[in-house]
């Protein structure tokens, strides 16, 4: 499954990029599984998502929970809890 993965704010800085195209294996069906797969790719992602840090996700620009099922070609964004206003 091809996915466009975006990172924002502190997460963008920790990962060191704002966007990447990934080819996720068949074992990745949900947002939680995508995050686990990104983490096992290397220290950069493991550190970025590490610990008790709360990370939110949006799929195709709508906030979703961890169990949201991904579709091929989706735009998946990871970011810290929002702090606007």
């Amino acid at each position, binding site marked *: 499954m091809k996915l466009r993965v975006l990172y924002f704010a502190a997460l963008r800085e920790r990962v060191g990029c704002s966007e990447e195209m990934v080819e996720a294996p068949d074992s990745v069906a949900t947002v939680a599984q995508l995050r686990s797969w990104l983490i096992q790719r290397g220290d950069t992602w493991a550190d970025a998502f590490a610990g008790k840090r709360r990370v939110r996700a949006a799929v195709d620009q709508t906030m979703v929970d961890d169990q949201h099922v991904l579709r091929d070609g989706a735009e998946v964004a990871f970011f810290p809890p929002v702090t606007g*206003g």
Partner: protein
Amino acid sequence: MAVRVQQEDFDAGSEIVRLRAGNSAVGAVASFIGIVRDLNEGATVGSITLEHYPGMTEKSLTSIAEQAKERWRLHDVLIIHRVGTLEPTDQIVLVVTTSTHRGDALAACQFVMDYLKTEAPFWKKEAIAGGERWVDARESDDAARKRWRP
């Protein structure tokens, strides 16, 4: 209904005049302006930089305004949110709601701000003495958002 994300400052007075122009049924206007403070979490703030998620930001603000219109009897809703680098005393956000009676306008204005604080993809980074830091989300904002659950 209008939603704008912009670097430029705004003038609340002229925005309100424009929003209610030509509608003689409007009997109430409520507004909120958010302003950059010089002190946060015990540190003096030199400036803040607001990052956002272009596309999702507009979508999210539009959805919040639409939900407000479904919940209360409103004539119109306006949300303006600034991005980029701002300094203490600068305006960050404007919400205006118009209705026939004050109750709807006031409640909807607070609802929009409470949802915006927890749903709209903006992130603040502060420049303080000795460096920069990302602003942490507040639990009190989550609590404010939850009281509007149907």
